């Protein structure tokens, strides 16, 4: 039973990987990667890594792939047209050579890895692994992983949280709309709006202040329908 499941999942993993590399449309590549990740989660389950399998499905195949789909939908169509117009000459020049060289390097790497992993004749590699007894706190369960993360690997855990924070800030800074990169008419359209922007509609602090201001004024003079136009913007 377990070996049947292994072969089904392994075929899914390898087919998903080949699909990612060979599809010409990036959207199909993303979908193939989702299938690859789901099959890989089955392999993780077979290896008794329950928490990692769940995290793989939820975080990777869920959140990260949604981000990919958004960016492909945002960028993808223009990429196709640019691909056809701008880059015909370099493709005609170097496509075959690149593909052959890549295949050669990947084949050599695969042979080397297989020799290193399987040809070494280690006894543990051909075994089924360490003895395993199912239970609530054994190998691979969330309790086990959480215990390790918060005791032995606490520094790693904190460093990875810091890394995530830096990456989130960096992603926002990289992908934000910069001043000076817009078209001319867009910049002309934006400039008077910035000057005439009512107070209280800009930052969150301003918004909260405007809210408090309007609340205080509403409590002060009840029934007064006339609102100051730049008093809070709403």
């Amino acid at each position: 039973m377990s070996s049947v499941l292994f072969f089904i999942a392994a075929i899914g993993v390898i087919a998903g990987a080949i699909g990612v590399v060979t599809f010409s449309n990036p959207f199909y590549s993303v979908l193939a990667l989702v299938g690859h990740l789901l099959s890989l989660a089955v392999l993780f389950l077979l290896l008794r890594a329950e928490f990692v399998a769940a995290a793989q499905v939820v975080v990777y195949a869920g959140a990260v792939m949604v981000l990919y789909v958004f960016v492909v939908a945002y960028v993808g169509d223009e990429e196709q047209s640019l691909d056809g117009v701008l880059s015909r000459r370099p493709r005609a020049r170097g496509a075959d050579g690149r593909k052959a060289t890549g295949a050669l390097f990947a084949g050599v790497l695969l042979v080397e890895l297989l020799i290193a992993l399987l040809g070494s004749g280690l006894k543990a590699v051909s075994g089924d692994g360490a003895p395993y007894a199912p239970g609530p706190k054994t190998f691979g369960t969330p309790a086990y992983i959480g215990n390790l993360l918060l005791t032995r690997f606490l520094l790693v855990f904190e460093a990875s949280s810091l890394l995530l924070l830096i990456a989130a800030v960096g992603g926002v800074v990289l992908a934000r709309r910069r001043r000076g990169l817009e078209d001319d008419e867009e910049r002309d359209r934006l400039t008077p709006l910035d000057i005439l922007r009512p107070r209280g509609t800009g930052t969150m602090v301003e918004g909260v202040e405007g809210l408090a201001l309007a609340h205080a004024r509403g409590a002060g003079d009840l029934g007064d329908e006339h609102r100051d136009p730049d008093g809070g913007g709403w």
Partner: protein
Amino acid sequence: MSIGWYLAVSAIVFCTGAFGVMTRRNPLVVLLCLELMLNGANLSLIAFSRMWGNGDGQILAIIVMTVAACEVCIGLGMIVAIHRRRLPIDVDELRELQG
């Protein structure tokens, strides 16, 4: 199944990802192939973790997934920035740093 089968699958996935990184020209697909390589490494980490009955490899796999998420975030931000500047989204055309 013996651990060696899992290691063989991880080697095949890693090499497929390396082939894609070397041959594809769309940076989105290059990022996807980097994910493939990281996943191959993750599978071998978890296989070795199962081999010794020790959870350290699973912790390392979780950290690798974190780093992969950060790399996706930064890489997709760069692709969106490239798209905003109307530059071609093609790793062969973006060669200003090469001189």
